[in-house]
């Protein structure tokens, strides 16, 4: 019974997409923004929204996932970003962290940020988001620590520094 369920699931999830031929839309005109309808992903090569399949490259997955996250479509962002082949890409991990955090799973988010920083300690955008996560948890000291790490890497003029600094200010002012 259970085995049958798994086989059924596996064939739906993993064999299914292989049967779907990429259906490129025939419309011309201006290039669409890298944000697509549910179930589609922006292909940076063809500059079109295509059905999400395992054939889509990680850059397209990243771009689409980031756009969805920025639009507040966190669940869809997670679905897309989970398709990335390279599960250690800090950009992918960062937006998985961001999307989980914004859906309220702050500790899951922090885990993704920590993994991203393990891959690339100089990725200051992750440190900015991580500082925000720590503010969400009420840990100003940890947020300031990330601010210090950002300053070491890009000074006080970079956007990661100024954005986290203003978040900390706003938090402290209450």
């Amino acid at each position, binding site marked *: 019974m259970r085995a049958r369920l*798994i086989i059924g*699931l596996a064939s739906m*999830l993993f064999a299914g997409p292989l049967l779907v031929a990429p259906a490129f839309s025939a419309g011309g005109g201006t290039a669409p923004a890298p944000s697509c309808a549910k179930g589609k992903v922006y292909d940076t090569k063809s500059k079109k929204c295509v059905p999400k399949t395992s054939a889509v490259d990680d850059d397209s997955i990243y771009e689409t996932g980031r756009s969805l996250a920025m639009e507040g479509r966190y669940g869809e962002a997670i679905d897309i970003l989970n398709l990335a082949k390279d599960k250690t890409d800090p950009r992918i991990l960062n937006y998985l962290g961001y999307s989980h955090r914004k859906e309220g799973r702050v500790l899951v988010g922090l885990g*993704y940020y920590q993994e991203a920083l393990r891959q690339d300690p100089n990725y200051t955008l992750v440190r900015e988001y991580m500082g925000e996560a720590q503010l969400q948890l009420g840990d100003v000291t940890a947020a300031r620590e990330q601010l210090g790490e950002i300053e070491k890497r890009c000074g006080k003029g970079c956007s990661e520094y100024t954005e986290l600094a203003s978040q900390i200010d706003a938090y402290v002012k209450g």
Partner: protein
Amino acid sequence: MAQQSGMLDDESIYEAGRELAVAKRYGEAITVLSLAADKTDPRILNYLGFSHRMQGRVLVGLGYYREALIQDPSYVPAREYMGEAYLQLGDLGAAREQLGQISLSCGTTCSEYSRLSAQIGLFLKGGGWSPPEAADAVGVSSENAL
């Protein structure tokens, strides 16, 4: 793929995800478990943590375990795995802390306590962490074994 999420209840998703994870099909387990409607179910979070950890993303795994424990601090399977994660990171003190927490929830005879305790013993003898050999040695909590 999206339409599958409405077809299966979370119980089936959990069972299938757990079976895949125990069969070491971690990537597939993550895909299946991600379909759960309730993203805060500690059982789902626990096996997402397990699968990420077993694929080498120990810090991602820890995040899922912590989230599972926020949802239910007495969910000892997550504490057992969290203890294992700490051993993977070489943090014996933190692993022992989880063992202590498990004993507060279910004593020192429940399977979660015995397994983490054995892992800590192996860690001390061998100077490192190695994954348990038998598939049934992982994650089948006493409630699931019934």
